[in-house]
């Protein structure tokens, strides 16, 4: 991680006073074992070149890393990439310049715009070259990006993921550094850096005078304050984010829940199992259903269940809500607690399971748990045609998507003991040829359990 500042022109030497670093000496400070170092490689009347870099202590850097049992624990780009960590390392070395407070006799140079070139890298960023340029161009920089050639003995990757940026332009040193201190963390794919509200302060301080007008302000804020909770503190209420797809999707989700609730209400179940309840969106609605007494939300994933619990806790404040009990469960295990309920729901669950594992799971549901009714919903593959999505599934994790015929045949096979009556329908906007985006089957018990 390094930054080289090059100034040219007759006043180039003045930059050393603004940096408050003697060009005749090399600079080295130890910060918890990490060495912050600086040296001048050019210093004459026409040109000044100073490089500040960090030689980190690789083991010390891992102290607070969370994945300490990971095989790649010690293999870490944080040692090399220019990142927020780099900024915090060099902040005090560059403090004078950053704050624009050199020795009084040089203070007139604080506002002086030098012909500057700032070279820094490597950067580890998911932003495209174009986006990177877009970050610096508005302040009047020319941006040059270089990427090393790579040669591997086997096919591994197209191009290197390490880039170096060179910005050239007329800037005051202070502004140039402020730009870097705000934008370096924005560029970096940092994963191991805790962000809190102090970051907002920093943004406001270093961003003064340029960030508010920056055309990519939204992006900068979002990237800088990576976590939603922090970002929401500064989010503009009128942020006009127009993303069409999710809206449509949300709509279909709602329709699906509506239809399930409507179907369920007709069957008047007292006890319902929401299998694969995820973050509890459906379960929370089931909790308000008339006559419901017992609601089990079954889910094997911890993160999803935690979200569900938060959702249920909020809903509890409203009257008439039957709080779902979250159960750690899965289709591949037998769970006595699910036996003999009025209704089991598999809402958009089966398509996440390898088709060959399903028959056994469904056998457990229909013939061991034996609910009075079972509701299954799954995408209708025929409808994908209208989404213009080639051969892809609607979700990365989908193991299959079925046509209506496939689904109907499959459901009939599951009812091999003939205990249930099957009823098929669809959810969502109907097309003559493709049907509806979601298909549904309701299994109703004909045979009473002995």
């Amino acid at each position, binding site marked *: 991680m390094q930054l080289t500042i090059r100034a040219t022109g007759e006043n180039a030497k003045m930059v050393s006073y603004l940096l408050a670093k003697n060009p005749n000496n090399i600079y080295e400070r130890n910060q918890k074992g990490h060495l912050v170092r600086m040296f001048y490689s050019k210093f004459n009347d026409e040109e000044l070149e100073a490089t500040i870099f960090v030689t980190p202590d690789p083991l010390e850097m891992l102290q607070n890393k969370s994945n300490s049992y990971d095989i790649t624990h*010690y293999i870490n780009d944080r040692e090399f990439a220019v990142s927020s960590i780099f900024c915090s390392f060099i902040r005090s070395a560059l403090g004078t310049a950053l704050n624009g407070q050199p020795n009084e006799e040089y203070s007139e140079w604080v506002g002086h715009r030098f012909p500057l070139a700032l070279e820094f890298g490597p950067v580890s960023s998911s932003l495209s070259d174009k986006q990177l340029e877009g970050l610096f161009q508005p302040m009047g920089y020319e941006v040059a990006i270089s990427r090393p050639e790579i040669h591997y003995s086997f096919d591994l990757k197209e191009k290197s993921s390490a880039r170096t940026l060179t910005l050239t332009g007329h800037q005051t040193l202070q502004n140039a550094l402020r730009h870097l201190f705000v934008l370096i963390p924005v560029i970096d794919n940092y994963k191991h850096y805790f962000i809190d509200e102090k970051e907002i302060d920093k943004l406001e301080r270093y961003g003064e005078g340029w960030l508010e007008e920056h055309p990519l302000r939204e992006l900068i804020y979002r990237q800088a304050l990576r976590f939603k909770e922090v970002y929401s503190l500064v989010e503009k209420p009128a942020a006009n984010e127009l993303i069409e797809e999710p809206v449509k999707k949300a709509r279909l989700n709602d329709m699906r829940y509506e239809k399930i609730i409507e179907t369920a209400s007709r069957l008047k179940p007292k006890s319902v199992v929401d299998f694969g309840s995820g973050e509890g969106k459906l379960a929370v609605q089931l909790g308000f259903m008339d006559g419901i007494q017992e609601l089990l939300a079954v889910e094997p994933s*911890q993160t999803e269940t935690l979200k569900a619990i938060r959702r249920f806790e909020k809903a509890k404040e409203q009257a008439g809500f039957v709080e779902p009990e979250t159960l750690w469960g899965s289709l591949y295990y*037998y*769970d*006595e607690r699910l036996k003999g309920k009025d209704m089991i729901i598999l809402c958009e669950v089966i398509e996440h399971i390898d088709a060959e594992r399903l028959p056994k799971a469904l056998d457990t549901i229909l013939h061991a748990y034996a609910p009075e009714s079972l509701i299954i919903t799954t995408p209708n593959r025929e409808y994908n045609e209208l989404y213009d999505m080639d051969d892809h599934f609607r979700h990365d994790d989908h193991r299959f998507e079925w046509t209506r015929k496939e689904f109907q045949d499959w459901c009939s096979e599951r009812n091999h003991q003939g205990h249930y009556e099957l009823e098929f329908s669809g959810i969502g906007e109907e097309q003559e040829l493709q049907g509806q985006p979601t298909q549904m089957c309701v299994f109703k018990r004909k045979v009473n359990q002995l």
Partner: protein
Amino acid sequence: MRIGLPHAGIVLLVGPSNSGKTTLLRKLVDQKEILPSEIISSDDFRMLVSDKDFIDWRNRPQDEAAALMDEYQEISTEAFEMMDALIEARCRLNKLVLVDATHLWGDDRKRFISLAQKNHVPITALVFDIPERVLLERDEQRDQPRGKKRIKQQSQVFRNEKRFIKKEGFASVYTIKETEGLELFRHVNPLDIELQDGIDVIGDIHGCFAEFVELLEKLGYQENPEGLYVHPFGRRFLSVGDVMSRGPESVRTLQFFLRHVEEGLAYMIDSNHGWKIARWLDGRQVVLSHGDEKVEEEFVQYEKEAGSEKTLELKQQLKEFLLNAPSHYVIHKNGVPVLAAAHAGIKDAFIGKQSQAISDFCRYGDTGGFNENGKPVRKDWTVSHSRNLLIVWGHDPKPKPLLINNTINIDQGVVFGGELTAYRYPERDFVSVKAKDVYTGTVDNPLAEWEKNRLNPPNISKFLHGYSVLTEDVGEVKVPSDIVKPAIDAVSHFTVPIEQLVYIPPTMSPTPKPSSLAGYLEHPKEAIDYYRSHGVQRLVAEKKHMGSRAILFLFKDTDAAKKHTGIASLGTIYTRTGKRFFDGETEAKMVHQLNNELERINYFEQHETDYVLLDAEIMPWNLKAKELISSQYAHVSENALVDRGMLKSKLEAAAKDNEELAGWLKEYESKLANVQTFNEVFQKYCWNVESTESIQIAPFHVLAHSKQTFFDQPHTWHMEMNRMLASQSDLFVETEFKIISDEASEQEVVRWWQEMTEDGHEGIIIKPESYIPKNKGKLLQPAIKVRGQKYLSIIYGMDYLEEKNLARLKNRNTGKKQKLALKEFALGIEGLTRFVGRESIERVHECVLGTLAMESDPVDPRL
């Protein structure tokens, strides 16, 4: 008069004051017939709680007398409460307690009777029937006379009550009119057997006499001229019951046991069928079914042959024999209980005790209602067994002896065409004989039923709250709930089906100590030293391939797969985390090719197996890890090259004019060289894979075939198998190995390791020759990896050899890793042994899930 006191339980002394209760007890203590601690007296407890054993309110004004009576009442209440607690504790512990108080009132006695019943111990009454005159005389001679009025009162009550006592529910009632000449002795516990020369516990015979005799002979019993089967070393055999019914020769088997038990050569315990036949022989109204009707038929036949008189006599003898068969036996070794044998099961609290409830439990197990087919639901009583005493039982046929939670089921359903099992103690091994026929149960055959249910989905409630697995090699392995849950999540989303996920390879520890050599973190010396110091002399050093670990589960054909896993596929290949190694299409192709190769060498026929389970490394590394290599290793390498390359150039340029920079430049030259090594090392294990031909599989363990596991084979055998497989295959490759047996071969291995690792090869694994290495009964690390100097840069970072880094890394602690390695190793062996033994997939899964859990991170405690 001689009175036998039971070995345990409550002995209630009944009689008014001055009837001689305390005096008798004192005498017995003096004679050392009983211990002072076996006596509990209400007077003592009054003393303990209040410092007074008696309060006299005679001759007191009424107000004072009333207050004193109150006080006495209060003291008595407290004293009795304490006393009951103590009595109950002694009952729970199966000790004897003699209660010294008047016990004149029925309610008092009933309290103790129910206390005894509740704790399944016998209760005896010693009733002191002494004339009132004598009582009054004795009272006058006391230090603190109770007074005429009170004695007369008590005597009156006693006279009224004494006729009821016999009917109150005492196991025995003795009436003592005269304490002179009274002799008491102690019975021993009839359930106790001293192990002596060894015991052979035999499973349910069900009239399969031929198999039974064959088994006895296999166990070494020899028939003597009197027709008795006697063991030359004095061993005895013990049947867990159900010697009759269902099978062909019930009467003969019963006669056999009758004789041998009478001769002290054998034991037989009560059982459900035994009890039914006993009551039938006793002439009670019973419906003979479930094969009991066959016993009746046999008796009809017997009568035709032997005549009615002999039949009657035999029936009489067998009736007594069966009615008196104990509910269970407790085997003692050097006086310490080590093993209990019961028919259908037993609770810890019942062991060594007798009662109707215990008999029922031992006969039928923990039954809870009936299922939809009208059969009793057998509940799993083994889960609550927590004592360190082994319980051997039968009743519920399983295909193989089933070891669960320190209990062993040895009913292998010989009458259903299974096997007759003997469990030898203290040898702790099994001897079995195959059934000569399927004698019964074409419908509802429990072995077939077991087979049908074998692949049922595991019961999640067994795992969710944490559980433990009893392993053969390290004992109990605890799997806490916070690590189980993420493993269940993984199994629910990412792994191959539970039925195919039968084994997860254990983690492996590096050398327990870091290398003592400068510049090395790991070196073979420390691994060899570890084993030497644990008494292992012969070691196998295997070249470690650098690819991805894989388990290959390959079947002879889809029918065989269906039989063992319920899934008709030629096989599957999965990773250490249980995920499918290849995508479905590639897997099918690979498995198909492997199947062809194995068929070509006639593998399945030659080894008489339906499948082979291989533990292997699949190369190249990038096959599975391309994404990781690209996003981590290559990415870091590129960033480091850029960073260090740029700095080196800049320092080089500036150093010409600035001597001070020479140090930094040198540092960065060396750092750049480190990246270059790093960059070369990770590419070494990668090559392009255009087709399956570029894939290499190095199987280093042949884990199991359908009839056996190979954990009993030394690693040299596994290496031979590896060679054999590699020689015939386009996919399998050989693993180089060397044997360490002396100084010279050790040096040779070090040289070999040095050479290959300088070339960038990963390193070697050092294993004791035997697969399950133990020293003084304790499991040792089954293998230790020794990785090369260069290779470790992709593990510990490119600069790990820099002095200040290496010094810190040498402080690494492998303790946790070693413990984990042992547990996972034991779980792996246990799980696979169960799978090969055709145990339920739930029992296999608990082992697999345990290892997956240990390799996963803990979850949020709120869940």
